[in-house]
C-alpha cells in the first residue's frame, strides 16, 4: 500500500508543481498584460463635449452661445433592449438618436440624448438603480439669442452628426455639426475639441468612483465675430412687419462687410429641428433664405445694366436723346407701352434713369442691337453669384443669344426682343445679395469686395467689366432717382447725406401686385453702404421698398 500511496502523493505533488509553473506564467510573466486587462475591465471613458464657440455680431452682441442641458449617456452592453425601452418610457423620450447595437465601443459611454427635460431627468434619477450603466450629467448645448431670432437664417443651427459625418470628421457619437449658415461654414472653427472624464465601474456598470485620474478638459471652440449688426436687423424686421415676404441686404462694397442679410419669414434656430415639419409645410417657405436664395426679376433696376451696355458699346452717351416718350413706342407692327401712360417727353440718359422711362430704353436697346446687347451683357461679368460665405446661395440668371435661339427657334429670334430685354423683362433673375453687389460695383465705378459675414484673411474683389469713366451718366441717373424732381424714389431724399439708387417693380406670374424692389448706395460721392430691399407682392419699388431703404439709411447715419 505504501508504494502506491507514494505514487499518488508524488503524482499530486507533480500536479502542484505544474500549477505553480502555470501560476508563474500568469502572475509573473504575463503580469503586465493582465494588469492592463484588469484596468480596462473597470476604467470607462465619458466624453466631455467641447463648448461650441460663440458667434457675435459686429458690436459684440452674443448671437449664439451655450447653455447647460442634461445629457443621458449609457454604457453599451449593460442595458438590454427592453431595459432601454423602459428607460425611454420613464424619461418620456420618443426615440434613440442612434441604434445602440451598432456601436461596440464597450469602453466608452455613448450619448443617448442631449437636452433632456428636467422632469424626465428626475424620473430617471428616481429609478437610477434599475438602470446601471446610465450616467446623467450637464453638458453645454448651443443656444441662440432669441432677441435676435431674425438673424437665425445667417447663423443656421446645429444637429447631431450622422453616422457618415462621424467618420468623415472623426467625431464622437452625440457630437453636433453645424447646418446652414455660419454654423455650417465655420463648423470646424466653432467646434472645439472634446475632453474626457474617467469613471470606475463594477461588472454591472455601476459607477464606483469618478475621476480616478484627472480628466482631460475640453477645448472651447473659437469665438466668431461677424460683420452683422444684429440690432440693425431687428430694426429691419420691424420695418417688414406689414409685409409677409421679402429680403434686405445692407453691405459695405468697399470692404465686403455685410451688416444685414435679412429674409422674411425666418425660422428660429433654437427650435429648428422641432419645427422642421411645420416649416416644410409653410406656404410662405421660411426655409428659403430669400436674401441669397430668392431669385427675383430685377425690373427697372436692370436699366442701370442696359445703360452700361449701351455706354460700353458707345451707342449712347450722357446726352443722347432719343425720340420723345409719348407713353408708347411702336416698333415694326407692334406697340410697347411706357409705365407712364402720359409719356415722359424727351429725356437724356440720366433723366431716363431718374424716371425709369421705358420708351427711352426701348430705343437704347435698339441702338445697341439685340445680339450685340447680349454679347456685351455677357462680357460685363454681372455678379449673378456673389460667393458670400453662407451656403446654398442661388445663382441668378441672364439670358444669352444661344438661350433665345434654343428657346424660340432660330428664325423666331427677332430684333424686337431687345426692347423687353433693355427694360429688364424676360427671364432675368437676381438674388437680393447679387443686386447689392451689383449696386456696389456701379457705385464704386466697377468693383466691389466680395460680401462676407465673417471677415476672411484676404477678401476678394469682384469686377464689373466696364471702363470706370463710363459710369458717370448711370451714377448721375441713380442720383436723380432719389434727388431729382421726378425721381421714382424722391420721397426718401435727405438733406445731410445724398442717397442714390434705382427702383424696380417686378411683374410676377401670379398676377398679384408686383414685387417692390429698391437698391441704393450712400453717400453718393463716396459710397459707404449699399442697401437693397425686396418686398414681395407689395407694389412699385418707389412705394414700398424705397421708403424702407430710406429708413434704414437714416438709422445708419443716425438721422431722425
Amino acid at each position, binding site marked *: 500500500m505504501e508504494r502506491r500511496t507514494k505514487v499518488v*502523493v508524488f503524482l499530486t*505533488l507533480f500536479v502542484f508543481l505544474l500549477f505553480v509553473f502555470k*501560476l508563474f506564467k500568469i502572475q509573473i510573466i504575463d503580469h503586465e498584460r493582465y494588469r492592463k486587462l*484588469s484596468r480596462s*475591465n473597470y476604467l470607462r471613458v465619458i466624453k466631455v463635449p467641447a463648448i461650441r464657440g460663440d458667434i457675435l455680431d459686429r458690436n459684440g452682441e452674443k448671437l449664439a452661445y451655450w447653455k447647460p442641458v442634461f445629457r443621458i449617456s449609457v454604457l453599451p452592453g449593460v442595458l438590454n433592449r427592453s431595459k432601454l425601452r423602459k428607460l425611454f418610457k420613464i424619461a418620456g423620450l420618443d426615440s434613440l438618436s442612434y441604434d445602440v447595437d451598432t456601436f461596440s465601443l464597450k469602453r466608452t459611454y455613448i450619448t443617448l440624448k442631449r437636452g433632456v427635460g428636467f422632469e424626465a431627468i428626475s424620473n430617471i434619477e428616481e429609478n437610477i438603480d434599475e438602470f446601471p450603466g446610465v450616467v446623467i450629467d450637464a453638458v453645454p448645448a448651443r443656444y441662440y439669442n432669441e432677441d435676435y431670432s431674425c438673424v437665425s437664417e445667417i447663423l443656421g443651427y446645429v444637429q447631431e452628426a450622422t453616422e457618415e459625418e462621424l467618420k468623415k470628421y472623426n467625431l464622437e457619437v452625440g457630437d453636433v455639426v453645424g447646418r446652414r449658415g455660419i454654423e455650417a461654414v465655420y463648423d470646424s472653427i466653432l467646434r472645439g475639441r472634446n475632453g474626457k472624464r474617467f469613471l470606475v*465601474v463594477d461588472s454591472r456598470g455601476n459607477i*464606483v*468612483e469618478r475621476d480616478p485620474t484627472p480628466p482631460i478638459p475640453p477645448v472651447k471652440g473659437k469665438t466668431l465675430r461677424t460683420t452683422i449688426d444684429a440690432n440693425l436687423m431687428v430694426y429691419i424686421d420691424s420695418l417688414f412687419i406689414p409685409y409677409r415676404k421679402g429680403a434686405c441686404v445692407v453691405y459695405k462694397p468697399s470692404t465686403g462687410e455685410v451688416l444685414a442679410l435679412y429674409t422674411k419669414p425666418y425660422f428660429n434656430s433654437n427650435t429648428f429641428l422641432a419645427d422642421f415639419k411645420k416649416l416644410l409645410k409653410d406656404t410662405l417657405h421660411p426655409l428659403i433664405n430669400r436674401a441669397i436664395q430668392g431669385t427675383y426679376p430685377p425690373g427697372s433696376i436692370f436699366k442701370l445694366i442696359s445703360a452700361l451696355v449701351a455706354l460700353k458699346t458707345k451707342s449712347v452717351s450722357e446726352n443722347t436723346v432719343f425720340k420723345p416718350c409719348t407713353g408708347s413706342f411702336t416698333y415694326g407692327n407692334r406697340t410697347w407701352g411706357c409705365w407712364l401712360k402720359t409719356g415722359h417727353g424727351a429725356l437724356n440718359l440720366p433723366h431716363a434713369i431718374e424716371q425709369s422711362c421705358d420708351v427711352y430704353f426701348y430705343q437704347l436697346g435698339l441702338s445697341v442691337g439685340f445680339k450685340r446687347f447680349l454679347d456685351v451683357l455677357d462680357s460685363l461679368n454681372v455678379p449673378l453669384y456673389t460667393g458670400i460665405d453662407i451656403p446654398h446661395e442661388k445663382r441668378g440668371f441672364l439670358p444669352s443669344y444661344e438661350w433665345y435661339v434654343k428657346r424660340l427657334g432660330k428664325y423666331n429670334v427677332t430684333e424686337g426682343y431687345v426692347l423687353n430685354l433693355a427694360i429688364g423683362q424676360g427671364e432675368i433673375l437676381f438674388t437680393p445679395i447679387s443686386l447689392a453687389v451689383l449696386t456696389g460695383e456701379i457705385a464704386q465705378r466697377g468693383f466691389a469686395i466680395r460680401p462676407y459675414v465673417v471677415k476672411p484673411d484676404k477678401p476678394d474683389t469682384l469686377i464689373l467689366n466696364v471702363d470706370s469713366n463710363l459710369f458717370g451718366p448711370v451714377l448721375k441717373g441713380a442720383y436723380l432717382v432719389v434727388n431729382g424732381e421726378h425721381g421714382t424714389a424722391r420721397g426718401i431724399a435727405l438733406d445731410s447725406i445724398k442717397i442714390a439708387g434705382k427702383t424696380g417693380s417686378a411683374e410676377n406670374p401670379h398676377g398679384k401686385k408686383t414685387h417692390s424692389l429698391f437698391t441704393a448706395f450712400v453717400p453718393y460721392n463716396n459710397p459707404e453702404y449699399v442697401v437693397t430691399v425686396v418686398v414681395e407682392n407689395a407694389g412699385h419699388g418707389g412705394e414700398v421698398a424705397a421708403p424702407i431703404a430710406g429708413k434704414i439709411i437714416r438709422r445708419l447715419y443716425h438721422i431722425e
Partner: protein
Amino acid sequence: MKMLKALFVPLLISLIGIVELSRINKSYFERQLIFLIMAVVIFLIVRRINMKKIIHHYLFFYIPGLLLLIMPLFMAHGHVKRWINLGGFSFQPSEVAKIFFILFMASYFDKKENRTTHGFIKGLLLSGLYFALVFIEPDFATASTYIFIFAVVSYVVGIDFSVLLLFALAPLSAIFSFSWVLYLTLIVVLTVYLFLMEKRRFFFAISMYTIVFAFGLFTPYIWNRVLKPYQRQRVISFLDPEKHRDTSGWQVYQGKIALGAAGFWGRFGESFNQKNLKFLPAPHTDFIFSSIGEDVGFLGLLILFTLYTFLLFYFYEVIKKSRKGYIKISAVGTLAFFIYHIIFNIASNLGLFPVAGIPLAFLSYGGTHLLTEYTLLGIVDGMYERGE
C-alpha cells in the same frame, strides 16, 4: 496534543478562507465562521468514535450512505435535486454520503479477499449505485468525486493495475475520442504499457484494444449520427446544469485576470480589483483560489501550496504508520477526497479544467462541505491516534 498535528494545517487553511470571505461578503464570513466552529467541535467528537466494532460490516456504512443519496431525489425541490432543507438549513446529502462511502470502501477493502479482481468488480458494482444516484440528481462533478475516490482507493489497496486500466479504458476512450490527439495518445500510452508489462498477457491486450476501439469509434458515431441536436444539447446541459449563469469561458478569463494582475505580491490594498468590482465570478466558492490569489499574489499562493503539501504528508504518515488496513484505507480515501477537491478546483481556476462547481478544500464557502471535511479528518485522526 497529538491531534494538533492533524488540525493545525487544515485550521490554518480554513482561517485563510475565513479572512478571504470577510473581504468578499460579511454574511458569508459570519456563517462560515460558525460552520468552522461547528466543524472543529464535530472533529473533536468524531475523533472519539471507535470504529473497531462496526468496521467489519461494510453494509453499516453502505446502506446509510445510499439512503442519504436517495433522500434528495424525493425531498429536494427544483430541477437539480442536490439540496434538501432541514429546519431552515439547506444541506447537501451527497457531500455527507462521501463520509459513508469512504468508510464503506475502508471496510470493504479491509478484507484481503476483496482485493482481488473478483472483489474489485463486486466493489465496483456496489459503488456504481452511488455513482448512478449522484449522477441522476444530476451532479456530474460530485459523481466524479466518488469515481475518483474509488479509483484511487482501488489502486492503493493493490488491485491489479491492468484490471483497473481495463475498466478505466472504456470511459477514457469514449471521452478522448472527441479529440484525435488525445485518442492517439491513449493508444500509444496503452501500447507502451503493454510492452513494459512484466507478464505478457495476450487476451488481456486484445480485450484492451477492443475496448479502446469499440468505445473510441462508437461514441462519436452515436453522438454525431444517432443523437439529434436537441438530444445532444440535453446531454450537454445535463452534464453542466449551471452553464446558464454566465459563459464559463468568461468566468475563467476574469479569474485569470484576477490572478495575473495580482503579480508576485498581490493587490491586497487596492480598491479597484477584480473582486471588489465584482468582475470575479463566484469568488466565495468556485473562484476562491483566484480571489485569494488576487490578494496575496504568487508568493501567498506558494505558501498555500506548501500548506496543502503538509496535508498530503500528514495522510502519508497515517497510511505509513497505521497497523490496521481499514485505517490506512480510510486515510487513502480521505486523501483522495482532498486531492480531488484541491486539484480540480485549482485546475478550473487556471483554465485547465472546466468549471464544474467543485469546492476547494477548506476554503470554499459552504457548510456541508466544511463539516464533511472535518468529520473525515476527525475519524481518520481518531483511528490513527488510538491505533485501534
